[in-house]
């Protein structure tokens, strides 16, 4: 409860919550809020200007831009959240287990996981997408693979540190089962750095997904996504500036809010780093 109070006092937290709550609401209920069908093509009204029926106008196929924006947040969020959840689960489990086992085995597991870090993230993502094809499901897997080492590293180093603490040793000495030591003592200790990493990973994942979609290697048409809309709009920049501006604004605000959420959580959960970003 104390943490919650501190969060509410943090300006960055409040600001990002004000943006993120509607964004998440749109991600969940977006397809029900759309004024028009986001994928219905009607070339006769292409590039219509803003009107009461099409509040943000229409795109090159006569599709309602507002509807596409509202429907386009969902895939980004789906990829970011489920992908991050995947990398969090796999990464922190691997990290905690190899930190707890320690020694050679732990080291080998970590080295294997860190192989992923030898590649610039977007290149590995492009390669995997090439192999399995684009689309939301594969993007989720890509995000889960790419960010596993980050979680594993944090969990590994924190576990190694906590493992040597006297209270963990004393818990082992009085006969606590490995599962109990891992689950209760160690995991509750490595939890806050992992929470901070989650928010960082979500914003990186949104950036990655939208970047791939921008290149045409992410969410596939006709399903809309913000990055893909910006990519589609590029040929029409001089014709209709707002077509590019709207998805860019939505996307940038969402990423800004997630980043600020990360900063705020770091302020609250890790007081040593307070005010230092």
């Amino acid at each position, binding site marked *: 409860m104390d943490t919650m109070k501190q969060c509410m006092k943090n300006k960055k937290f409040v600001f990002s919550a004000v943006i993120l709550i509607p964004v998440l609401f749109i991600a969940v209920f977006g397809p029900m809020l759309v004024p028009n069908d986001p994928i219905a093509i009607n070339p006769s009204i292409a590039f219509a200007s803003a009107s009461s029926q099409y509040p943000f106008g229409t795109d090159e196929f006569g599709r309602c831009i507002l509807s596409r924006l509202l429907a386009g947040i969902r895939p980004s969020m789906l990829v970011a959240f489920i992908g991050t959840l995947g990398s969090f689960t796999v990464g922190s489990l691997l990290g905690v287990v190899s930190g707890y086992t320690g020694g050679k085995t732990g080291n080998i597991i970590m080295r294997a996981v860190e192989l992923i870090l030898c590649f610039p993230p977007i290149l590995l993502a492009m390669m*995997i997408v090439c192999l399995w094809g684009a689309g939301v499901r594969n993007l989720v897997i890509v995000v889960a693979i790419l960010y596993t080492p980050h979680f594993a590293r944090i969990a590994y180093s924190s576990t190694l540190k906590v493992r040597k603490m006297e209270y963990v040793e004393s818990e082992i000495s009085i006969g606590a089962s490995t599962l109990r030591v891992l689950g209760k003592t160690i995991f509750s200790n490595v939890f806050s750095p992992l929470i901070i990493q989650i928010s960082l990973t979500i914003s990186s994942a949104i950036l990655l997904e939208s970047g791939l979609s921008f290149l045409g290697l992410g969410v596939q048409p006709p399903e809309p996504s913000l990055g893909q809309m910006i990519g589609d709009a590029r040929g029409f920049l001089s014709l209709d500036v707002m077509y*590019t501006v709207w998805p860019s604004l939505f996307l940038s605000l969402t990423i800004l809010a997630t980043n600020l959420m990360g900063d705020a959580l770091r302020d609250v959960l890790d007081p040593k780093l307070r005010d230092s970003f």
Partner: protein
Amino acid sequence: MGKFIFKRLLIAVVMLFMVSSIVFLIVNLMPGDPVLLMLGTDSSPDPASVESLRQQLGLNKPLWTQYYDWMFQLLQGNLGMSYSEHIPVVQSIASRLSRTLELAGLSMILACLIGLPLGVYSALRRGKLADFLTTITASLGISIPVYVLGYIFIIFFSLDVFKLGFSMPSGGYMDVSRSFSGHVIRLILPSLTLALGLAASIMRMTRSSMLEALSNESVHALRAKGLSEWNVIFRHVVRNAFIPVITVIGLQMGNLIGGTVLCENVFNWPGLSTLLVKAINQRDYPLIQGCILVMSTVFILTNLVVDIIYGLLDPRAR
């Protein structure tokens, strides 16, 4: 020191070997028959020619023999033939690598020139309006995707929507031999676009690292000794504060390469990344393999350099 550098070099070599093996595996696991792709998919090709081409490319051999052959060729600097361009992959990469490196290198320099001084300034003015404004701008800078920033620049400076009285080219490339000014003017927008995001993360790290160095007790001792504030900040605090920033610059290399992929696409910069995207769309496997290998190598080598610089500056890291 020599031992430290040798160890780093050895790790880099192992990483390069691992990366090339993974790239080989992934590309060879890709669905789709490269032979059918090469012969064209519109008509069903004659089975005999399919078989002879397969033999010619060595695709009928077992995977590990292919791997051995490929690695052997790779060590001699041969990356195979591009399916779509019908020229050696090395040749088509060579002409474009320098352009990507030029763009990325210039952006890195610009990012340091913008990020480091702003970070120091913001830390010294902590809590004041100037600090607030720079930190907000930096938060925006790390949040706005590269391509969005690129379009903002194009809207402002190329389409000239605000009638600033000049218009920059919105993309393309001109060789230095044709026109030096034409070359430079086409470099400005893409390199600035790439630089700003990086500058923002460098600024954030510099600020926090400055704040940490400033809170060190030695600062009190230096002041008590009677050193001028200028001397304290620039000869002592800044020197300590910049060491962790170097690690961040190293970590940003991956983002810089990712950034060039997107930035080259926005500005039609004919570098490696546009080649890679084209290769992916045409399923030109040797070219995909080559591009990813070369870009990952650049990534590993720059990280090696950053590691060594870090070791030189901070003896504890050795």
